């Protein structure tokens, strides 16, 4: 058992499942948005705004933002642990990995709250 403090759930199975479920949510959301453009090729701001202000779409968008942030964190965490380790950057491994992980976490959380604010703010 290899322990890790910065992975999303510290469990390989949980991270793996979260990444797969979130991928499905992201794919469905993409199809829904693309579908909206196909159904309404002459989409204007009012139609767009009505669609995204409807309660089901706001809820779906919120779930998708959470899925996106979880998916992105697991992916970025994997990349940092693959490439920012002693085999690649030697003695700077821990410092560089933690710095990049902290930046990624900050950006992810910023996007999360910003997204919530866009869809659910006044």
């Amino acid at each position: 058992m290899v322990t890790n403090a910065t992975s999303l759930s510290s469990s390989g199975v949980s991270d793996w499942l979260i990444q797969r479920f979130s991928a499905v949510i992201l794919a469905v959301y993409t199809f829904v948005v693309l579908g909206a453009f196909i159904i309404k090729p002459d989409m204007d701001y009012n139609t767009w705004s009505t669609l995204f202000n409807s309660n089901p779409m706001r809820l779906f968008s919120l779930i998708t933002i959470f899925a996106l942030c979880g998916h992105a964190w697991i992916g970025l965490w994997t990349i940092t642990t693959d490439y920012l380790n002693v085999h690649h950057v030697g003695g700077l491994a821990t410092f560089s990995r933690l710095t990049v992980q902290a930046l990624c976490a900050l950006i992810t959380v910023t996007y999360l709250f910003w997204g919530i604010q866009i869809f659910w703010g006044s």
Partner: protein
Amino acid sequence: MLVSIYRYNPEIDAKPIMQDIEVEIPEGKDLMVLDVLNLAKEKDPTIVYRRSCREGVCGSDGMNINGQNGLGCITPLSEAVKPGKKLVLRPLPGLPVIRDLVVDMSIFYKQFEKVKPWLMNDTPAPAIERLQSQEDRAKLDGLYECILCACCSTACPSFWWNPDKFIGPAGLLQAYRFLADTRDTAAVERLAGLDDPFSVFRCRGIMNCVSVCPKGLNPTRAIGHIRTMLVAEGT
């Protein structure tokens, strides 16, 4: 034929070099790569490499042959190199070089050891032996044949990046060999030791291991089975 061989003695050399040696190949014969290496060694006796059984059983002569990992003793020249081209031999990638084509396999064995590659059964031993049906025995086919040559693990980028954390295809094939064995009663304990983000889940399914295995085994499929067992156990 021109053979280009990786030469490096870390105790003396500042960096590795590729040494070109001209070798006479007998007319009309499709020699194995190991035979060609033996001919090269006759010209330069200082070349160092491992070999033993010369029939693909011991797994000693795993090496990188024209960019692809394989066993020198069962890789024919016709398969390894196009006519008129150079044969290029390098050590297995990702492991520290001890000298020339000989690599330090300690980390590979350490990962193998982690999966406890032996039968664990806490029930009282029967008088003679633990019997198994033919169907249950058949589940081990494609798993037990691994010769630990390390061709698969050293072809795996996930193993290159995290050799100390990712068990690698060879170790995981053996992990599943015991998980699939109906005589083993330690499945829950074995799975608990694998449920972290590195040991199994660093496998990205690129299947380099499958394409290089000299025994034709499929570690990616075994890893998929372990993943399914982990999901079943953990949800």
